[in-house]
């Protein structure tokens, strides 16, 4: 299906839809963050553009990335932009009513959403979170290189966002290229789709160009000064930019600072700021353009439900921070890791099912894969289960072009309008339809080729006669899936205290004794160089 879409995009010279609805929540006021890093240095930021207002981004620049103090200043600047936003959302709560197995709880009414240009930038957010959440602040008298107070808190939030981004279907932290490629298919390879400028050129070609030409210009077009017309979306910079303009500007800054020349330092710093901004601004605008494109799509039916889980995640972390828990460990212990994996697997299955239910294109891919079948009901035969109280178990036969890849007896599910959960059924038989229908279908799409019979096993009420509308009439169009509509994870994992020692990871981990992995990061005088 993807393959075909890519071929169609090549022929059309621009991207083709890969979804008919938007599968990702987009906040009213997302925080856009475009980071840039220094080549060859892990976690030495060069600058960033951040903010919720597309016309007035906050520009943060490190005029000498190798200087620890300036770098900490950058983190403090980032914290002063992000933390107030986080605090604002954290205080705006609503109350979740109590249910059978949960007490009444407080839930944040909304959560701040952070959007970065691409997956590399998302990884960078994780890296910044990792590098800052253990730093010791000025409140700690023993800290060799103290940082401003809010920096470790920023690190914990960034870590939480980056960690949450690993859960399928979550939207707290979005890499724009991933979201765009979910909704459009371009005529280039998946690897090239990672270039935000090129991807946007395929989806929404600039005036006078088609997708491939626009993408090529975004990838390699250089101005007369040899700099890229559309700078890379980061966090890595263009080496030509580094060598030709940035390095001399940094040298000027260093020289002025070493000479103690105040005005010259300020001038050189302004120059570096101008240069870094020139690399950031095009990407900043691209990110907002990408968000506009996404907003034009109607939201999928289950998006709000998934966003609610994100709000739970946000609220949960808020509570942990407020309770004064220590920062997230460098490595999860065995129990936490197992829980995270189980949670993500469930989330993945749920996401796949919900996308298929929300979006006919996603369902089409599942039908192609033999995981769902849709067609017209050709016959309904009433039948009852054996037992003391016979229950209706009608046999429904439908003519479908889809060949379900399952053995008789497999469970199937059908979404019934107005019902709370999917109707269950069991596959009875799959027989080829008589030839004729299949053959003349070659022209405009294949006609039904299979006759599939299922036995409805639920969703018909508890009486002897099925609830009205719960059994399809002959001639009705129905769709069954072979996957659950609301998949749950397996049985809950035991609590950490109850986990047998064979599954609990290395001894000592549970007692909280600091192992070698917990020792503070080594610090060298000329950190990062």
């Amino acid at each position, binding site marked *: 299906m993807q393959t075909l879409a890519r071929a169609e995009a090549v022929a059309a010279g621009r991207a083709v839809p890969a979804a008919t609805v938007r599968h990702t929540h987009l906040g009213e006021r997302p925080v856009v963050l475009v980071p840039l890093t220094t080549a060859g240095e892990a976690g030495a930021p060069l600058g960033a553009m951040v903010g919720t207002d597309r016309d007035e981004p906050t520009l943060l620049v490190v005029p000498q990335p190798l200087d620890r103090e300036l770098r900490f200043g950058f983190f403090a600047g980032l914290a002063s932009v992000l933390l107030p936003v986080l605090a604002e959302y954290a205080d705006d709560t609503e109350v979740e009513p109590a249910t059978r197995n949960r007490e009444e709880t407080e839930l944040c009414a909304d959560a701040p959403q952070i959007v970065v240009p691409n997956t590399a930038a998302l990884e960078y957010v994780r890296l910044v979170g990792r590098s800052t959440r253990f730093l010791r602040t000025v409140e700690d008298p023993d800290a060799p290189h103290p940082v401003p107070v809010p920096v470790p808190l920023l690190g914990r939030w960034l870590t939480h966002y980056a960690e949450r981004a690993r859960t399928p279907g979550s939207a707290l932290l979005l890499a724009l290229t991933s979201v765009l490629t979910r909704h459009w298919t371009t005529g280039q390879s998946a690897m090239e789709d990672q270039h935000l400028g090129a991807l946007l050129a395929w989806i929404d070609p600039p005036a006078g160009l088609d997708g491939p030409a626009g993408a090529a210009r975004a990838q390699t077009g250089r101005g007369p000064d040899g700099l890229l017309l559309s700078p890379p979306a980061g966090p890595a910079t263009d080496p030509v930019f580094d060598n030709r303009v940035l390095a001399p500007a940094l040298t000027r800054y260093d020289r002025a600072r070493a000479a103690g020349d105040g005005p010259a330092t300020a001038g050189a710093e302004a120059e570096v700021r101008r240069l870094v901004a020139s690399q950031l601004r095009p990407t900043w605008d691209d990110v907002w353009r990408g968000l506009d494109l996404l907003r034009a799509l*109607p939201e999928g039916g289950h998006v709000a439900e998934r966003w609610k889980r994100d709000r739970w*995640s946000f609220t949960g972390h808020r509570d942990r921070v407020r309770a004064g828990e220590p920062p997230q460990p460098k490595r999860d212990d065995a129990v936490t890791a197992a829980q995270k994996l189980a949670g993500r697997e469930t989330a993945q299955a749920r996401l796949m099912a919900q996308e298929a239910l929300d979006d006919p294109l996603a369902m089409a891919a599942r039908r192609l894969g033999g995981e769902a079948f849709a067609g017209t009901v050709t016959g309904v035969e009433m039948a009852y289960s054996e037992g003391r109280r016979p229950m209706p178990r009608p046999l429904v036969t439908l003519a479908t072009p889809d060949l379900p890849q399952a053995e008789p007896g497999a469970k199937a599910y059908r979404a019934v309008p107005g019902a709370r959960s999917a109707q269950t059924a069991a596959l009875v038989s799959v027989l080829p339809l008589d030839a004729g229908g299949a053959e003349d279908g070659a022209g405009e799409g294949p006609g039904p080729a299979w006759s599939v019979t299922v036995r409805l096993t639920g969703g018909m009420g508890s009486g002897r006669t099925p609830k009205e509308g719960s059994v399809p009439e002959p001639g009705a169009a129905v769709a069954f899936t072979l996957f659950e509509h609301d998949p749950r994870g397996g049985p809950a994992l035991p609590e950490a205290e109850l986990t047998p020692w064979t599954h609990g990871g290395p001894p000592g981990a549970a007692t909280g004794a600091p192992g070698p992995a917990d020792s503070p990061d080594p610090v060298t005088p000329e950190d990062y160089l």
Partner: protein
Amino acid sequence: MSTSHPLTERLAALRGPSTPQRPLDARALAALAANPGCRRRALMDAAGVDKGAVAEALGSPARFGQSRFAFSRGHAFEARVKADGCAELLRLLGAEGRAAVPDLGAPGPKGRVERTRQALAEAEPGGWTLLDHPLLALEIAGSTVYLEPDAVAVAPDGRWTVVEIKSFPILDGGADAQKVGAAARQAAVYVLALAELDEHGGSRPRPEIVLVCPRDFSNLPTAERVDVRKQLAVTRRQLQRLTRISEIADALPEGTTFDLRPGPDGRTPTRPREELTAAVEAVPAVYAPECLSTCELAFHCRDRARAAGRVEALGRSLRGELGGLTTVEAVLAAAHGTCGDPTDPAVAALRRAAALRREALAAAPVVGPRAAADDEPVPAHGGGAR
């Protein structure tokens, strides 16, 4: 061996009389191994053609280059690891204060290779010997390639280990998989070259290298062992194929050359673009999107692949799915039922996909019944429940 070699002459002609040969290095050999089917790259690399200059002359320059920040960082880190007679490196190897670090200085590359061979032979059995920047030679397609690993350690058991120093960090015990992979492929070439030096049939170089990287966010070096057996096998196979360079060269029309005919300033090419394009096109290439990050000619090859509507331009895995359909046109024609054998599974699947896609796009997005799951217990945070 250095007497006139017909292939060497042939390759020199391909390069152009006034063009200096670009020596192959471990990185280039490793990149070749990543796309073993590409004859264009194999031939041009063997001939020592400056592919970047050719790409520029063809009008599809590559976006390559190293930032000077990364460059200086790499140098500073290696200098730190090797300061005070490689003290830090020896500590990581567990040979602190009890290793010989012989001087490998010698005139000329041949002398240095000879000196390296001697030093390896003289290494004291039962003790540690560390060779700092030895020079190794590998015979490739009739010409000698000189390779310079960061270091080679001889352990007390007589085994040789390649040491590779890189400046990307090992963070909490893990590093960027792509970078580690690149380092492993590069080191595999060194291991192969070392095996050539071993008179014991190549059993002494360990198929496991030591990767030295900065730890976390500091400048403190840390070392990890990396198994390179897989990379070794791939590289070895590819280098065996490289010896058939002569076959590729023989298949070319008489007089083919990639000479740019530099003008009087020695830089600006004077060769007409059409002529050069024809010469490059005379060698078949195997383009894959992965080339974009490893080969200077990739943008040229991509334009060509796209112009021919080849499906490889869309990705390797996609190419594999489509079987006999090699062009975008054929894919679309098959999908729309205008040609293709309906019993071919790929064609049948495409037709079904086309029909389903049309049907789905025709159906207006229906806002389906919302799952009424909101009042059910939601995990407090899907990821890390505590």
